């Protein structure tokens, strides 16, 4: 897949550093939170790329930097052959037709003072895509129907809808401009499971029907396995492993991916109780001061348990690059080894 096709979105060395200001009268910059610190990824037309990681690893910041909602501090984002990093608001606007975002919290991302019709119509009006009122009504109606809501209800306000329905409104708004790429930032994590399943099914249907590509950002690996074609795992602002879905889940090579998969409880009592679990120690280090060499070494079960003193030296001093471990399978570990954990 990665061989012949051109990526629709190509990210190279993306950096987003937030300055830390010192105290006192003159606010000097005393350091930086390296939320995204040199990240590469490619999104191909028609694919779902899952981007997973724990809180604070920089996955949401990546999504926002790609859309230029929070301008990147370094690196490059090429979307359909155009460089996005450094573009101003005006220059960015025509590109926004083709790349849209759905936010995590459907209670915060919809304007409570606008009826649903206005929320969905707003992008169409801003981009001047409809000639008259009748056409606008027709398009909003189609959009609302497409996401599985009753078009009779478009004069209602967001407060009258449940969480799952609100998320569908957010999706309708994102689809209004007929984008080619959707960045989905934790689109279902605020929803209850019985509701979540409906929204996931909707996203899958829309992708097939409209030929969309998704960058699906989530912390729930079960959801990511379900929806993604490829999966990238982030740790402290970097991608540490990326692979086709089944390769990643069946034969993860990075110790962090292995620990992450192993930590997720399975809703199956017999299986869950008979599993061998890798439990890593500690918490994610501060992105303001990441460890030298390999960023994961402070929590790595392999570093702590298996490696000899001489092998560890490399982890301490050399940052491991993403290297090929199989077809389209890359991971950033000096001592990567495919292991079955599920």
């Amino acid at each position: 897949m990665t061989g012949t096709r051109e990526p629709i979105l190509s990210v190279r060395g993306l950096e987003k550093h937030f300055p830390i200001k010192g105290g006192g009268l003159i606010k000097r910059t005393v350091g930086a939170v390296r939320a995204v610190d040199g990240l590469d990824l490619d999104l191909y037309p028609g694919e779902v790329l899952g981007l997973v990681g724990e809180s604070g690893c920089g996955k949401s910041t990546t999504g926002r930097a790609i859309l230029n909602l929070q301008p990147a501090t370094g690196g490059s984002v090429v979307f359909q052959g155009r460089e996005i990093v450094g573009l101003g608001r005006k220059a960015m606007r025509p590109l926004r037709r083709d790349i849209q975002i759905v936010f995590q919290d459907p209670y915060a991302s919809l304007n409570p003072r606008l009826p649903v019709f206005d929320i969905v119509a707003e992008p169409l009006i801003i981009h001047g895509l409809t000639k008259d009122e009748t056409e606008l009504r027709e398009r909003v109606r189609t959009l609302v129907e497409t996401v599985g809501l009753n078009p009779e209800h478009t004069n209602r306000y967001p407060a009258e809808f449940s969480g799952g329905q609100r998320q569908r409104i957010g999706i309708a708004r994102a689809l209004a401009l007929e984008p080619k790429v959707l960045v989905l930032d934790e689109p279902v994590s605020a929803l209850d499971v019985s509701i979540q399943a409906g929204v996931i099914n909707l996203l899958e249907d829309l992708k097939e029907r409209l030929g969309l590509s998704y960058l699906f950002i989530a912390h729930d690996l079960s959801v990511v396995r379900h929806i993604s074609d490829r999966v990238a795992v982030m740790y402290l602002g970097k991608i540490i492993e990326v692979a086709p879905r089944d390769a990643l889940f069946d034969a993860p090579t990075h110790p962090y991916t292995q620990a992450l998969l192993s930590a997720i409880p399975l809703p199956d009592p017999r299986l869950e109780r008979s599993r061998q679990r890798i439990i890593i120690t500690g918490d994610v280090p501060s992105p303001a001061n990441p460890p030298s060499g390999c960023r994961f070494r402070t929590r790595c079960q392999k570093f702590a348990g298996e490696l000899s003193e001489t092998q560890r030296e490399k982890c301490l001093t050399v940052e491991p690059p993403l290297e090929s471990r199989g077809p389209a399978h890359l991971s950033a570990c000096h001592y990567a080894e495919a292991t079955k954990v599920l």
Partner: protein
Amino acid sequence: MTITNNPDAGAPLLAVEDLNVRFPTEDGLVHAVRGVDYSLRSGEVLGIVGESGSGKSVTSLAVMGLLPGSARVTGSVKYRGQELLGLSDRAMSRVRGKGVSMIFQDPMTSLDPVYRVGFQIEETLRTHDKSLSSKAAEARAADLLAMVGIPNAAERVRSYPHEFSGGMRQRVVIAIAMANQPDVIIADEPTTALDVTVQAQILEVLQTALGETGAAMVLITHDLGVVAGIADRVLVMYAGRPVEVGGVEDIYYEPRMPYTLGLLGSLPRLDASTKQRLIPIKGSPPSVVNMPPGCPFAPRCPLHVAECDAVEPALVQVGSGHHAACIRIDEVAAAHGSAAKVFDAGSDDAVLGAEAPADLAAAAGTTDSGAPGDPVGERTDVGAGPATGSLLDPTTTPDGDRR
């Protein structure tokens, strides 16, 4: 883990009977908990699962006597035979922490930011043992911190909560909950605010804590994976009531209530290699204000018949220690835990007829003036796909050629 057969196994440690909680609001009386019964024996772990608003947290707050004064609580909560409902706050304080203690969801807010963590543990110890010297209390606090896996415990007792990460704070909360060796620990979503790798650590600490103290636990969560790992019995709540209760394997492999079956079917599985379509439950949970008669799940239930709307079904025994509140138990039993046999995978997206997609694709084709190379043709192809409902049929998904 099985139910321990100790001498007083006949008398449950904690018995909740017909617990009802009502909150007066402007919209009317909100009947948040509508008749919860459960009993907990020593050493047992009872998982209470349900979606947000199902009344699982309110139930536990009622047991602990922590609801606001406006709440109207009726029924009975007995701890070792002693009735807790109606006890004065002072009398309740003697039970809280010592007999029954609680772990809250959010470790960022359940610790006091202005006191050192050691002090907060010592406070709990000295409330129940006035004769404890401050030196002994500090030593015990350090022991407790060490037990929940905090390194350098002797020094860390002097830290403030903000110096700890989320996982570390939750360890402190657990240390406080077990400080007085309670018989029952009520853990309300103890790992929901944490990352999965930290969740795994905390669940291990909890299990160690239970092992050390021999306490029984009520674990409230919405995560069916967490419950599968550590609960002995499971109680499923819906709209303020238990709708199914039974041994953990019965609930997961042989559920009898359509809601339980639906919940399990709507979960994406981490260990599923084939791409199966998720089975959502249509609609959303009912509001607990002025509930209509009949089964509260009926409007969302694929097995719904007219009889379901007449009267709310009571919990009936469906197996050894397994109860479910449904009049169509036999139909659910026939599914043997496979939600696809009862629920229709397409039901939630019923509004999405075959026309809607074609419409949008057509709209895309006529109005799209995008860049050259825009896959309009591809869109139309997909949109105008063959037969009615084909988009909802997983078997026709052109999935294989992309990998």
